[in-house]
């Protein structure tokens, strides 16, 4: 890993953002409001019923807060939602290939988005307050578990989305699958027992978003002591698969050209 390059790209990022200072704040504020709108759904639901399958509102808030942390770290380094359009259709991937740098690292650095980290802060704040309501007694193990699950979550996201953007090497679809996956991702914030078997299997083993949300959060809520430790394992597996697909995709791009 070349850290000097990371700082160089980070410098470019800061300079670009500084040119549009107001937008920086607009983005942070809109992002906060985005989260609040999502939380509003939970609030509305609990106005109708005191408990959903035995989960209290504070517990669902806690899961939501946790869910935000790995995701915001992930999007800081993965801001490639328009990868197909920008790099494949418009052909910028050619330029990436003419630089002496690993292509994935280059793409990640070129599109850094550290403002997403605000989401991690919001997430931790939400976790803190809902944990107080629930009355969670923090232990040292929780700190280790938190670190492990956040890193594992990042790996899972990286694996799934790297896999997804690799597909744009093979197909002409511009926007099809990404929003689909993004939608599904948001179902990982809810207890798995509300879903039927099919969706549960989907979220656990196919696109394992349960492992970036409710499974690890359940550890801190003292509902599930085990699943959390599986998070990094699944992350590593899925990222390895994605890297292989990426390899193939890159090869196919260079084989087919544009």
């Amino acid at each position, binding site marked *: 890993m070349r850290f000097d390059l990371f700082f160089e790209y980070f410098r470019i990022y800061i300079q670009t953002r500084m040119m*549009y200072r*107001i*937008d920086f704040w*607009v*983005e942070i*504020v*809109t*992002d906060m*409001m*985005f989260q609040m*709108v*999502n939380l*509003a*759904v939970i609030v*509305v*639901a609990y*106005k*109708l*019923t005191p*408990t*959903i*399958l035995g989960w209290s509102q504070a517990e669902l808030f806690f899961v939501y807060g946790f869910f935000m942390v790995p995701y915001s770290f992930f999007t800081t380094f993965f801001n490639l939602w328009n990868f197909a359009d920008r790099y494949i259709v418009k052909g910028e991937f050619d330029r990436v290939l003419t630089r002496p740098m690993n292509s994935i690292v280059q793409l990640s650095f070129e599109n850094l988005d550290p403002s997403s980290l605000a989401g991690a802060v919001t997430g931790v704040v939400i976790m803190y307050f809902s944990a107080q309501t629930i009355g969670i007694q923090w232990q040292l193990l929780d700190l280790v578990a938190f670190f492990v699950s956040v890193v594992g979550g990042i790996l899972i996201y990286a694996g799934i989305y790297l896999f997804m953007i690799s*597909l744009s090497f093979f*197909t*002409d*679809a*511009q*926007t*099809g*699958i990404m*929003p*689909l996956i993004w*939608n*599904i991702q948001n*179902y990982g914030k*809810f*207890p798995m*027992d*509300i*879903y*039927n078997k099919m*969706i549960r299997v989907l979220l656990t083993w196919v696109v394992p978003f349960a492992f970036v949300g409710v499974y690890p959060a359940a550890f801190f809520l003292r509902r599930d002591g085990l699943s959390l430790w599986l998070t990094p394992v699944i992350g590593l597996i899925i990222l390895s698969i994605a890297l292989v697909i990426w390899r193939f995709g890159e090869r196919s791009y260079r084989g087919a050209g544009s």
Partner: protein
Amino acid sequence: MWGAYGELIRLRFLIMLTYRVNYYSGIVIYAINIGANYFLWKAIYGSNTQLADMTIAQMTTYLAIAWMARSFYFNNLDREMSTEIRDGSLAIQMVRPYNYLMVKMMQGFGEGLSRFVLFSVPGMIVASLLFPVQLTKDPLHWVFFLGMVFLSFLLNSMINLIAGLMTFYLEQIEGLLRLKRVIVDLFSGLLVPLSFFPGAAKSVLEWLPFQAITYLPASYLAGKTINVSAGHVFLVQLLWVTGLMVPLVWIWHSARQRLFVQGG
């Protein structure tokens, strides 16, 4: 003139067909969304047979209809527009002998039409098989509903165009557009029917245009609102279409001034 607009609709229809992965994934998107929302609500209902003014069966039907309507009224005109403004192709559009806003509307219409025909209808059939959806068999209801969905399309597209025009005033618009999307989804009643909101929120939402996009048409077809007639739904929708016309035209004119000054 109208021939040109017709051609734009056809063209967009064809473009939508070109991306077949989009097509297949689109069907899956709708099935999964309806499914996940269904299970979430089933969990919320728990042992209750009725919450607010809906039974679980009505809720299921409501969700399916709401998502079907969404597939028609939803489009990315805002994002497209902001791209066109930023890369300067808006300037090229301006020298063509048609109205740019109309062009965008027509493109959105072609997109909505293709999505509706190609995957809402098949998606709806799949949903009715998987979940206890009870659709009305009265053809008149369906005719009225189609009219309402068309007005929903107009409303949502107008909101999208206004949001897209904001590109003239903000350099980075991505955050705003994302926020707009969740606000429309929530406030229109797609995720939660309006009658489920707490009192204060409900009365605020009733004064906003979003309810006319999803909540009113979907409630009408789901047969929930006995006291709300088709006439009422149409009236509210038409009022909002007229009401949104004012800011849209005004912003468009002031944005054009900016275009001429900035030179795109």
